[in-house]
């Protein structure tokens, strides 16, 4: 319909539009700059906190057995690390949390898919699973002890009750938020039911699923600590929760705060080392970097 000359003009206009309209991508700042921006503010905040703590301790408003000095807490941590006790305690708790979390993923993923895609299942147990999320999982500890005794089964039971609803709910939310056009496009491109789930639904639901996993991890860690603090027996060995519990029994406030510090450290560490990078990679690939 067009002469070659016109066709070339058109190509030029098209190329010009592409250059003008394509969103400009911000260049990522250098690694050093990113480190300064992300790592320095929390470090300063932490240093300030220690400073305030030290000042309060020096002012001696509270007796030593209620507010220890940062130094003595650090000594407790260092002592635990030196004797190898910290490593044992951390290992006991972290491997329980990871095992419990992985089991929760295996249970919650098909459960979430069923709730999201099968209407009867959603009507029957959808609200129940959402409701379970607001039930503090520590409430399951007494029941667990009656059912399973003070054994690892109780601990895993409580961890699962805490994390399965979060992960399943995250997946349901992820599936619900898929734009309805995408599955239709998939159908038009020739995807059958299975291919639809594999190539369209699961990748489209990934951000919601990841958010669910992240929350699920936080819930398993929390539930584990609750279970370990309440259920103590020689059979269970010493996890972080028991370490905390022992500190409290010995009236050793430094040990209690050291335990809290270690619990926080694991929670923040897993979040920073595992979930944050994963979430970032997924969101950046989709151009959803606003919150990052």
């Amino acid at each position, binding site marked *: *319909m*067009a002469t070659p000359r016109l*066709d070339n003009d*058109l*190509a030029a*206009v*098209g*190329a010009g*539009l*592409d250059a*003008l*309209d*394509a*969103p400009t*991508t911000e260049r990522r700042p250098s690694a050093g700059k990113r480190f300064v921006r992300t790592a320095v503010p929390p470090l300063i905040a932490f240093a300030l906190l220690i400073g305030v703590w030290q000042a309060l301790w020096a002012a001696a408003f509270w007796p030593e057995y209620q507010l220890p000095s940062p130094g003595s807490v650090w000594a407790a941590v260092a002592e635990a690390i030196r004797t190898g006790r910290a490593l044992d305690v951390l290992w006991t708790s972290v491997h329980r949390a990871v095992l419990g979390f992985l089991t929760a993923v295996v249970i919650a993923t098909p459960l979430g898919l069923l709730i999201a895609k099968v209407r009867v299942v959603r009507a029957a147990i959808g609200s129940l699973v959402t409701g379970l999320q607001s039930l503090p999982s520590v409430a399951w500890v007494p029941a667990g002890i009656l059912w399973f005794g003070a054994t690892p089964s109780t601990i895993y039971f409580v961890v699962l009750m805490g994390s399965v609803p979060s992960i399943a709910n995250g997946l349901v939310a992820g599936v619900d938020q898929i*734009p309805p*056009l*995408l599955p*239709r*496009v998939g*159908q*038009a*491109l*020739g*995807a059958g039911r299975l*291919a639809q789930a594999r*190539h*369209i639904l699961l*990748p*489209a639901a*990934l951000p919601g699923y990841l958010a669910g996993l992240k929350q699920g991890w936080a819930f398993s860690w929390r539930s584990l600590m609750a279970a370990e603090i309440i259920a103590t027996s020689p059979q269970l060995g010493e996890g972080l929760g028991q370490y905390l519990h022992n500190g409290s029994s010995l009236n050793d406030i430094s040990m209690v705060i050291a335990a809290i510090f270690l619990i926080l450290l694991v929670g923040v560490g897993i979040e920073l080392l595992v979930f944050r990078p994963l979430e970032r990679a*997924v969101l950046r*690939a*989709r*151009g959803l970097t606003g919150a990052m």
Partner: protein
Amino acid sequence: MTATLENTSLSTLDAAVTLSGVRKSFGHGPGAVTALDGVDLRVAPGEFVCLLGASGCGKSTLLNLVAGLDAPTAGSIELTTSRPAVMFQEAALMPWLTAARNVELPLRLAGLKRGERRDKANELLSLVRLGEAGHKRPHELSGGMRQRVALARALASTLGSAEEGTPGLLLMDEPFAALDAITRDVLQAELVRVWQETRTAIVFVTHDVREAVRLAQRVVLLSSRPGRVVREWTTADVDHTALINDITTRLREVISGHAAA
């Protein structure tokens, strides 16, 4: 069915798609809405047809029926092409895939091998002048570029399911409606170029008379609620300005007919 065909040289055999007496209603009983009523339409292989009509004429319903995304209440739709490709008003690219992977998706669903897929996708991206942008993600592309990727993907889906020799069929549901005027103008020209190069049949739904006359060989006007074929025009060897006026007048009559009711 063949009674509607006056031209004897055109049989069902050389039609890309033949609709006869197609009716589609939604719902049951007194609340049922009839979207299409007795639509007869024939599209020849390689033909470019625009379906024109006001809101509620069932244009999109018609495309969904031909695409097989929905089934007609009555009548029949015969396709002699491979599975028809569909393009929507939104590009609807998968945000987690690069442009090239999006084009590869239908080929992957059709079971093509990786190397073949990649070659085909590159070829199609070059066809829509995006050969260099294959590695980009949808959010890094402009609206017009996304729609071109969607076009390449649609073409891939009809080629992916095609055996040698079967003609393609591309169904387009107001694909340029959401774009700005200059981009739309460029894309219309691109579409005509791509159509000439691939020789696939196109059924293009629009409510823009100018767009319809510019693009199509044949313009089909549909009435609204229920949709029926009101009139057809061919655009070859006709003064386009006069034709646009003619069609616009007729379209206005169809629309004002609803005010009385």
